[in-house]
């Protein structure tokens, strides 16, 4: 009974200054939303790296990613002990309509690519149709939707690396096995591109960007990687083999400093709103000094007064916090669609949600500490003399 009474009194007190309380709640909501979005940005970068198991290796040119490797390496890699499947891909980089309509395009080995990437789920009859048509492509669901395509559509691309105008026919659509899979890729026949380019630009022929390798024992990834790279040591094109995860983390390492900064900002935002809220609560408690003293004179304990202030503070911070959590989802959605090409996934994780709620609680508790302590300590006679 007392608890519900405290809660009612606290929430009534909270709305005595509608504007002040409204602004404070809005401020907390903004802080919690920012915190959630910033954390999700960081999470999403790392989620990209978690995409696949360490059972998959990537072999690329030692010099740099922009160098290519001869396709003949594929056969030699396949013979390295521990290797199960090998496929390859190279960046195609064609332009559809204009640069704004960007989606990633890879020329892949049609026969083997989907064996190595089982998380790209393609209906068998579509896969068969793709393998039959050398100008066929398989496109991720997301890119299909974005462009309003359907199976059978012709997609013209203007070549950049591979000159000329290319035309492809959509033969299939792939879906991710889970929501971490990038559903934006446009996958075409490496064999077809290779054959056409041989005639005009022989220097580009028979080259691939990366070999993607599935190994038999994920625990042996280090040994197999070393075996592959040693096979090409002192050759014209030396290789670097690493797990797909390490490959992606390498990308991320560049932005690591930025991520640390983002994470720091997320926490600083919480600290700032905590200070603002503490000020609000201190003002409120000072204004009510005489009321609290009256309650104490009537026989209510110091603790009751503290709890009243804590209850008011928590009501305010949780109202702001829950509003913030509720706003995080639509805003994350909007953020994701505004930055389509930056993130593979952009999901607000349960950990982020828990941290948002925990931060709200922490804001409410910390803001109430000083005023609750002061109000419980103030002597009744001094409190009663306080002017309001």
């Amino acid at each position, binding site marked *: 009974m007392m608890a519900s009474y405290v809660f009612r009194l606290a929430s009534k007190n909270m709305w005595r200054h509608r504007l002040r309380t409204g602004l404070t709640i809005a401020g907390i909501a903004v802080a919690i939303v920012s915190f959630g979005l910033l954390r999700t940005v960081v999470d999403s970068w790392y989620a990209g790296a978690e995409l696949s198991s360490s059972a998959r290796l990537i072999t690329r040119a030692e010099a740099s990613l922009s160098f290519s490797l001869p396709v003949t390496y594929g056969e030699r890699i396949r013979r390295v002990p521990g290797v199960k499947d090998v496929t390859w891909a190279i960046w195609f980089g064609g332009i559809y309509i204009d640069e704004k309509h960007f989606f990633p395009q890879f020329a892949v080995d049609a026969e083997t690519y989907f064996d190595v990437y089982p998380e790209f789920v393609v209906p068998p009859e579509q896969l068969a149709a793709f393998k039959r048509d050398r100008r066929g492509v398989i496109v991720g669901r997301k890119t299909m939707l974005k462009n309003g395509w359907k199976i059978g559509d012709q997609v013209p691309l203007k070549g950049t690396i591979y000159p000329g105008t290319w035309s492809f026919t959509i033969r299939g659509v792939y879906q991710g096995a889970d929501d971490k899979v990038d559903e934006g890729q446009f996958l075409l026949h490496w064999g077809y591109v290779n054959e056409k380019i041989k005639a005009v630009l022989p220097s580009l022929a028979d080259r691939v960007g990366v070999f993607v390798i599935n190994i038999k024992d994920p625990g042996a990834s280090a040994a197999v990687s070393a075996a592959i790279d040693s096979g090409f040591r002192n050759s014209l094109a030396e290789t670097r083999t690493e797990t797909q995860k390490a490959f992606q983390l390498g990308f991320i390492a560049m932005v690591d400093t930025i991520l640390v900064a983002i994470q720091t900002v997320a926490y600083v935002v919480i600290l700032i709103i905590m200070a603002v809220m503490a000020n609000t609560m201190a003002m409120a408690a000072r204004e009510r000094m005489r009321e609290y003293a009256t309650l104490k004179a*009537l026989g209510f*304990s110091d603790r009751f007064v503290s709890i009243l202030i804590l209850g008011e503070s928590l009501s305010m911070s949780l109202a702001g916090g829950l509003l913030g959590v509720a706003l995080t989802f639509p805003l994350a959605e909007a953020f994701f669609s505004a930055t389509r090409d930056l993130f593979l996934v952009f999901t607000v994780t349960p950990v982020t949600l828990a941290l948002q709620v925990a931060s709200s609680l922490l804001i409410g508790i910390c803001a109430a500490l000083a005023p609750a302590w002061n109000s419980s300590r103030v002597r*009744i*006679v001094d409190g009663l003399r306080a002017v309001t």
Partner: protein
Amino acid sequence: MSSLISIRSLGKTYRRGNQPVPVLLGIDLEIAAGDYVSLMGPSGSGKSTLLNLIAGIDKPTSGTLLIDGVDIAALPENDLAAWRAANVGFVFQFYNLMPVLNAFENVELPLLLTPLGKAERREHVETALAMVGLADRMDHYPNELSGGQQQRVAIARALITDPTLIVADEPTGDLDRQSADDVLNLLDRLNGELGKTIVMVTHDPKCAARARRLVHLEKGVLIVGGNGDGH
């Protein structure tokens, strides 16, 4: 008559920084159960200080203060709060109602510290508000009531737990003549009909005359009406 309040050489010294400020200098006073005492004196003479000591919201520096045999100065803070809740009704100059609670809820407040259930509380509150003539204003908030009405709500709050002692610090200080009379009439009834012991601080001789007994304080010392003189 037996003494309800028994005060011996009571002293109170405040401190302002390092400077001691003596306010009460050895007060001796007996107040019988059922008495109605008014406490007069110039501003700063220590009236409120004495009243606060009697009400158990401040502690004396020296002397003894027994109320119904209880040495309240010796009670730990929590016990003292419980003692106040059970034994003292407060009436303040500026009413001190909770602005966010309506008349009913304000009067109900002290009952939340008792084991009474919701229905019983309602019954008590309605009786108390009827007694002060505000049965029709139960759901009014303090800012929707006149000063006199607010003070009557405060009186209902003071008597709701049926305390033996009611302390009032200038209860009419902020009221016009008519409202002041209403309040004083109520205090008369609390004393006469319900047998409450009342100690009231006032500046107004007309108010003071309504009490059974008058005590005069001057610079921390009782001048008239202390033990032995007066009535």
